[in-house]
C-alpha cells in the first residue's frame, strides 16, 4: 500500500467530519430524526402529508450549502472521471441498494455507528467492503 501524501487532507477532512457530526446532532436532538440522506430522499417517494415538510427543509438546506460555502471563501472541486453510462448505472445501484439496505454513508455510517448499532456496523462494513472491491476491479483488474 502506498499513501497518496499529495492529496491527503487530514485536518480539512477531520473538520468537515466534525461539522457532519454536528449536523446529525442538531437533527436528532432538536427534531428527533436520524440524518440519513437516502432515507430522507427515498421517503419522499411514499408521500404522507405530515412527513414531507422536514424532508424538504433538510434538502433545501443541503442545496443552499454550495452557495454558503462559496460565500465563505471555500473552493468547490467536483471531478467525475466515470463515463455518463457508468454514472447512470452507479446511480441506479446506489438508489436501489441504499433503500434495500435501509441506509447509506450518513444514516448507517455516521448515525448508526454513533448509536453503536450492530445493524449499521454490518451495513457499513458491507458497503465499504463492496466499495473497495468495486474500485479495485475497475482500476486494477479490468
Amino acid at each position, binding site marked *: 500500500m502506498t499513501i497518496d501524501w499529495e492529496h491527503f487532507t487530514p485536518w480539512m477532512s477531520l473538520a468537515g467530519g466534525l461539522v457532519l457530526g454536528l449536523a446529525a446532532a442538531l437533527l*436528532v436532538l432538536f427534531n428527533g430524526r436520524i440524518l440519513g440522506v437516502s432515507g430522507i430522499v427515498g421517503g419522499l417517494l411514499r408521500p404522507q402529508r405530515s412527513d414531507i415538510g422536514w424532508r424538504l427543509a433538510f434538502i433545501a438546506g443541503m442545496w443552499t450549502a454550495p452557495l454558503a460555502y462559496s460565500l465563505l471563501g471555500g473552493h468547490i472541486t467536483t471531478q467525475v472521471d466515470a463515463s455518463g453510462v457508468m454514472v447512470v448505472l452507479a446511480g441506479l445501484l446506489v438508489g436501489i441498494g441504499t433503500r434495500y439496505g435501509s441506509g*447509506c454513508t450518513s444514516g448507517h455510517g455516521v448515525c448508526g455507528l454513533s448509536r453503536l448499532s450492530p445493524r449499521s456496523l454490518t451495513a457499513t462494513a458491507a458497503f465499504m*467492503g463492496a466499495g473497495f472491491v468495486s474500485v479495485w476491479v475497475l482500476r486494477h483488474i479490468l
Partner: protein
Amino acid sequence: MKQRIFEFVAGLLFGMGLLLSGMTDPSKVLGFLDVAGVWDPSLAFVMGGAVLVGLLAFAVAKRRSRSLLGAAMQLPTSRALDRRLVLGSLVFGVGWGMAGFCPGPALVSAATGQPKAVLFVLAMLAGMAVFEVLERMRNNTGLQPKTGAH
C-alpha cells in the same frame, strides 16, 4: 415552523461539512476507496470526526423520548441482521465505487449544476422508485412479512 428552521440548518451544515471534508469530490472519494493503488486515507478522518460528535449526541438522544423541541424521538428499532440489509449495502457499495458518489454528496454536487452529479441523482431517484414499486408488489402478494425499511 421552528422545527423547519432547525431542519434547514442541519441540512445546510451537513452540506457544508461534505464540501469541507472532500466528500463531494468523487476523485477524492475514489482515492480513498482505492486501497490497492495510491491510497488517500483522508475520508477515514471524516468518519472519525463525525462519529466523535455523533457518539455524544446519540448518547443523549437515546435517553430521551422527546426532542428539545418536543418532537417524538424517532430512532430505528429494527435489529435484524438480514439478507436485505447486507445485499442492499453491497449493491450500494458497488455503485459508490463506480462513480464515487453516495447520496448526500451527489445531492450537494447536483446543486452546483455539475452535469454528471445531476445525472447521478436522476438515476438514483429512478433506482429508489424501482425499490418502491417492487416493495408495493411484494406487500400486495401478502406472502412475505414486511420488515422495517428505515
